[in-house]
């Protein structure tokens, strides 16, 4: 079987030779679609894993054990709740209401990544740089 996943590397994990291990230890065929891994920065890789079902799941388990985040939904949009001030500039620009007012009394804003289609409109419009995309510089 083949499975497409997004690996997100926290800053302190970018030096792990994960792809090598997945090939050598778990007998997986890896196809890298896009990746950005730099020293001392968060990194990501969109990859296909091909192999037996057990090997894929064991390989993913191994990656998780190294502290690497496996994002099967492949959403690269990151909404930083600390940077967000709940101003609401994004609201008319988010076409799917993934960014929405969660409480009408406090007017606090939240992000629902299930609804996000990664149009990146919020990345363009947020005055506080609270929205960023792994796939955009």
């Amino acid at each position: 079987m083949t499975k497409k996943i997004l690996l997100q590397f926290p800053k302190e994990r970018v030096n792990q030779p994960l792809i090598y291990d997945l090939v050598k230890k778990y007998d997986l065929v890896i196809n890298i679609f896009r990746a950005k891994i730099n020293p001392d920065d968060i990194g990501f890789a969109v990859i296909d894993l091909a192999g037996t079902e057990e090997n894929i799941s064991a390989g993913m388990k191994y990656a998780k054990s190294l502290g690497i985040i496996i994002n099967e939904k492949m959403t690269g949009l990151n909404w930083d709740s600390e940077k967000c001030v709940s101003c609401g500039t994004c609201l008319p620009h988010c076409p799917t209401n993934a960014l929405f007012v969660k409480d009408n009394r406090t007017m606090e804003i939240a992000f629902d990544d299930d609804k996000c289609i990664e149009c990146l409109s919020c990345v363009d419009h947020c005055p506080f740089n609270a929205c960023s995309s792994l796939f955009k510089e």
Partner: protein
Amino acid sequence: MKTYAEINEKIKSGKAVVMNADEIISYVEQKGLDAAAEEVDVVTTATFGPMCSSGCFLNFGHAAPKIRISEAWLDDVLIYSGVAAVDAYLGATQLRHNDPENMYYPGEFRFGGGHVIEKLIRGEKVQLFALSYGTDDYPCRELRTYVTLNDLNQAVMVNPRNCYQNYNVAVNTSDKNIYTYLGHLKPNMENLTYCSAGQLSPLLNDPCYDVIGVGSSVWLAGAHGHVHAEGTQHSGVCSRTENGVPSEGAGTLGLTADMKQMNAEFVRGVSLKGYGVSLSLGVGIPIPVLNKDVLKRTTVKDSEIFASVIDYGYDYPQATGKFLAKVNYADLKKSEIEINGKMVQVGSMSSYSKALKIANILKEEIKCGKFLLSEPYRKLTMDVPFKKLKMASN
């Protein structure tokens, strides 16, 4: 009837009854005005939003040999040096040197004065680069170093204009996208932007400036400061609804406080696509319940506060003075509202949730005796209008 001194005595003894301008509405409805005026001592108001007319005076101290700075930059953002040798003013809307501005329209405007102010308050290092022509007493002609807020002798925020009493609601009726200080406005009035904390906003709770005046103590981004003057463009002469509440810009406040006491959560650099950079600030102002009239004005609610809808595609830039409609803040808190028969999506530049947080922080500070009120020594003007610029030929 209460006096400032009586209220401050209660605050000092930890017995003051304090409510925010949101919760006071239902409390007065429940208790009645007379009983509530007896009981409640202070109502806290607040706002959080971009306030372009903000900045700070900084004093760097001297290195050896001394410099009389004539031009300087902090993180490549120009600071005004036309004051004493190592003093400077850093303004919120100053762009970083070499920013491409709107050369590739709409520009991103990633970094400017507001961001430097935020960095300083976060305790981060910023680069100081300074030039001078050199004098006998100040021979140094160039220096480059790194400073943090702690290294500075003084860092005082002095904001010529904060806390606009009310604000325009911006739409765009043209057939092109436009990029303004109220954000990206899509063509044919597809969206709008408002910018006010409405029923929580300081000057909407004191519409005729009965209690907020020059010398009033304010909570500015966590620091205890005060109103130093009317803000620039302050105009008590404006259109007002029956309750005295302005339905356009109207009053403003000049605010000042020590940056070293500030909390970076409430001082945030702002990048506005196609427009420029600014600074969003959190301000809280306590209203002393001196009598029931003062209290009554703090019970104003969103549905009773109106703002003018203005076409930023034409009427605003061309200064025609026209407005398309008046809408109230209860409606503006919905995701869509109808304006002249068209459904328009609502966006906002100010943050009600941050304003509410500030009103509650200030409430707690007053309750535990940490924040005292001060009686203004002069009222804000009610009768000075806002003048237009005359274009003279000589």
